[in-house]
C-alpha cells in the first residue's frame, strides 16, 4: 500500500501480494441484490436494469485491517456491511478474455463494503461509502492455487457470533471471470488492485458495540468491531 496514505499497516503488504491501494467493487452483482429492487429497476430514476457492471471505488482512506474499529458517524444508527469475495490482481489485466481471466488473479481476500444505508442508487453521495475505515479487508491474501473454484464459495456473516447472512458466489450475475473480462474491457487492472465481486442482499446492519465477522470457505475470517465516532 502506498506510504504516507494514512492507511493501516496490513500484514499482506509483501510481494507478490502487495496491494496497490486501489480497490474497486461491483454492486448489484448478486442475484439477491438486484432482486431486492424488484420492479423499481424499470422505474425512474433508473428506467432499466444495469447493463455494464455497476462499479464503485473504495479510496485509500477507507482501507482498514482485520480487527480495526469501524466508526459509526454521529447521527447514523447503524451501518450496512456488504460481505464480499474479492480478487487480488496478479498480472496486468487489459481486455482479458473470460476463459483466461482467472489466470490474472493472484489470490482472494474477504472485503467488507461498509456503507451508510441509502435507498437511492442513482447518484448516491460518496460520503455514504468513502469514509475513513469503511473498507476492512483481510485477513490475508489466499493464493488462487488454494481456491479451487471462486464461483462456489459460501460467505457467512456473524453478528456478535450469531449467523445473520449466508450467501454463495454461485449466485453472482457476473461470476469472477466474467466480471474481470467486462471490467478490463475499458479499464486496466494492475498487480495489487482489488476487485470485489458484490454482496448479497439484505446486507447485515451493524450498530455500535457489535462485532461483525465475515467468513469465506478457505479464506478464513474478517472480524471488525463497530464503535461510535467519538469512541
Amino acid at each position, binding site marked *: 500500500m502506498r506510504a504516507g496514505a494514512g492507511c493501516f499497516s496490513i500484514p499482506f503488504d509483501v510481494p507478490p501480494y502487495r496491494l496497490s491501494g486501489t480497490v474497486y467493487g461491483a454492486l448489484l452483482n448478486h442475484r439477491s441484490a438486484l432482486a431486492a429492487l424488484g420492479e423499481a429497476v424499470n422505474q425512474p430514476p433508473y428506467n432499466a436494469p444495469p447493463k455494464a457492471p455497476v*462499479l464503485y471505488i473504495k479510496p485509500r482512506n477507507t482501507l482498514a485491517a482485520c480487527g480495526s474499529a469501524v466508526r459509526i458517524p454521529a447521527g447514523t444508527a447503524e451501518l450496512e456491511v456488504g460481505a464480499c469475495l474479492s480478487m487480488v490482481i496478479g498480472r496486468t489485466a487489459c481486455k482479458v478474455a473470460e476463459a483466461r481471466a482467472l489466470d490474472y488473479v493472484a489470490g482472494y481476500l474477504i472485503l467488507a463494503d461498509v456503507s451508510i444505508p441509502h435507498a437511492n442508487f442513482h447518484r448516491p453521495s460518496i460520503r455514504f461509502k468513502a469514509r475513513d475505515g469503511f473498507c476492512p479487508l483481510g485477513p490475508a491474501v489466499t493464493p488462487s492455487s488454494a481456491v479451487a473454484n471462486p464461483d462456489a464459495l459460501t460467505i457467512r456473516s456473524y453478528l456478535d457470533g450469531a449467523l445473520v447472512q449466508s450467501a454463495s458466489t454461485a449466485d453472482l450475475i457476473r461470476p469472477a471471470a466474467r466480471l474481470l473480462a467486462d471490467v478490463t474491457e475499458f479499464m486496466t487492472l494492475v498487480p495489487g488492485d482489488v476487485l470485489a465481486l458484490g454482496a448479497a442482499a439484505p446486507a447485515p446492519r451493524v450498530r455500535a458495540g457489535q462485532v461483525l465477522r465475515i467468513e469465506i470457505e478457505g479464506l478464513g475470517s474478517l472480524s471488525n468491531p463497530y464503535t461510535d465516532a467519538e469512541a
Partner: protein
Amino acid sequence: MMHARVAYEGAIHEATPAGHASAGHASAGHDDLLLADGRVVAAAAVVWLPPFEAGTVIALGLNYADHAKELAFNAQEEPLVFLKGPGSLLGHRGVTRRPAGVKFMHYECELAVVIGRTARRAARSDALRHVAGYCIANDYAIRDYLENWYRPNLRVKNRDGATVLGPWLVDAADVADPASLSLRTFVNDQLTQQGNTRDLIFDIPFLIEYLSSFMTLAPGDVILTGTPEGVINVMPGDVVACEIDGLGRLINTIAADDEFGR
C-alpha cells in the same frame, strides 16, 4: 514554481521550465526543460507524465451553473462527487482512445487542486493551507455508456488514459487567486469551451471542508473541480488543448481503436 514529471533517457525526472530556473543556462530555449540532475533538454525530447503521483482522484460533476443547465440538472444541495482510479491518468501530449461506434465523447477542462498536507475536518477558513498546488485536468467522458446506477458510472468516466493531467503542477504560492482563473478548450485550434473558476457552484475551500468532513485527504490526493459549458464531441485525430490562466496548456490527441490493437 512549475513542476513536471517526465521520462527521459531511461529514468523519470522532475523538471521545471529552463527559462525560469536556469540562470546558468543562458542558451536555454523557450520550451526547454531543466531536469533535477542539471540537464537542459528540449520539451519535445521527453515523455510527459502526470506531474505528481496521484493518490485518490476525486471529481466533481456539474459544478458550474452553466454546464449543469446544459445537461438539464437542477440546483444541488450537496456536491456531486465521484472517484476515479489511477489507470485513468495520462500526461501531457498523450493519446486517448475513442472506441469505435460511440456517438458522444467529450473533453472536460477542469482546474485540479492537489492536496499537499493531510486534511481531516478542515475548516473552510483554513482549507487552502492544505493545497500543494494546481494543474489542468482534461477529464473525458463517453456519454453513450451513461446508465442510471451510481452515476457517473466508471465505463463513462474511468477509462484508461481518459483523465489527462498537466503539463505542470504549479505551486499554490504562485497562483494568486484560484477563484478567478479563466479556462479555455480548443479543438484543432478552434475555441470551443470557456469559463472561469469564479463560477464554481461549490468553491475550493468548500470542497476541501466538505470532503475532509468524512474522508481524510492525504498529500497527492487531487480534486477535479468540474467543467463549464461548451463540451463537444471529439473524433480520432482531433487535438484537444486545455488552458487555464497561469497553469499552461495541456494537449491531448484522440486516437481510434486500431492504434490500441482493437
